[in-house]
């Protein structure tokens, strides 16, 4: 199962971005082989609809959970159709810490 985390930088010790659609990078963590991959968020520069475009980008990678600070209205309705689970994290954790929590 793959989990996408919105990230401010492309290293494992960078902070999680509190925005979903307009974050710089996404960290994609695979819980099966415990690997982390960073991808550029190409949707961030769009004037409108950055969230749905980012979601499309991530579902193409097979992501089933999203972790971010907050999600927009469009994502909230779209995600239930796509069977993607939203997780809102209000604290400023680093990517590494979130991955550690995911591993319990």
């Amino acid at each position, binding site marked *: 199962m793959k989990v996408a985390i919105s990230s401010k930088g492309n290293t494992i010790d960078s902070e999680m971005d509190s925005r979903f659609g307009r974050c710089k990078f996404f960290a994609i963590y695979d819980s099966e082989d415990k690997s982390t991959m960073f991808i550029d968020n190409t949707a961030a520069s769009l004037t409108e609809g950055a969230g749905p475009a980012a979601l499309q980008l991530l579902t193409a990678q097979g992501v089933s*959970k999203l*972790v971010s600070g907050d999600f927009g209205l469009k994502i*909230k*309705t779209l*995600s*239930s*159709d796509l069977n993607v*689970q*939203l*997780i*809102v*994290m*209000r*604290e400023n954790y680093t990517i590494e810490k*979130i991955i550690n*929590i*995911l591993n*319990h």
Partner: protein
Amino acid sequence: MPRPKIIRKVADKPLISGLKPYGMSYPVKKSEAVFLLYEEYEALRLCDYEGHNQCDASKLMGVSRPTLTRICMSARNKVSMAVVEGRQLIIEGGKVEIGNEWMKCNNCHCFFVKFQHEDSCPLCGSKEMSEVQNDGEDADNELSLKACCGRGKRHRCQERTNHKIYHI
């Protein structure tokens, strides 16, 4: 422009996407299918299957009590039409939001959308979680919900006696 419809809350997607008739007693011309909306399916499920009264069901769906009655009437009309006329029933469409039940994990303090009967936090796996009643922006919706019961100012709705400030 007319006022847009309020989004109806649907707890879960229906198990099936429709029903087909079989064993016609005499050959009939193939007729058009009946489209049952998601909100109508949910109204049927809450009122007739689970046996909630309409006031409770309307709160669960996030609409006013009179609106729920209208949805329910239309649903029964469509189901009966499908049964009597032997038409196919397809469940689709409607202005709905599915399974939007937000939960809060008490261990890692995250919020998440609850998925089908999940019993642990998707992030930390802890089982200590609580339901989120008001998600800030939904607070206005909740107020209007409690204010309406559709039976006039004087009617002693239980909700209203509990929350007296909400009447406009």
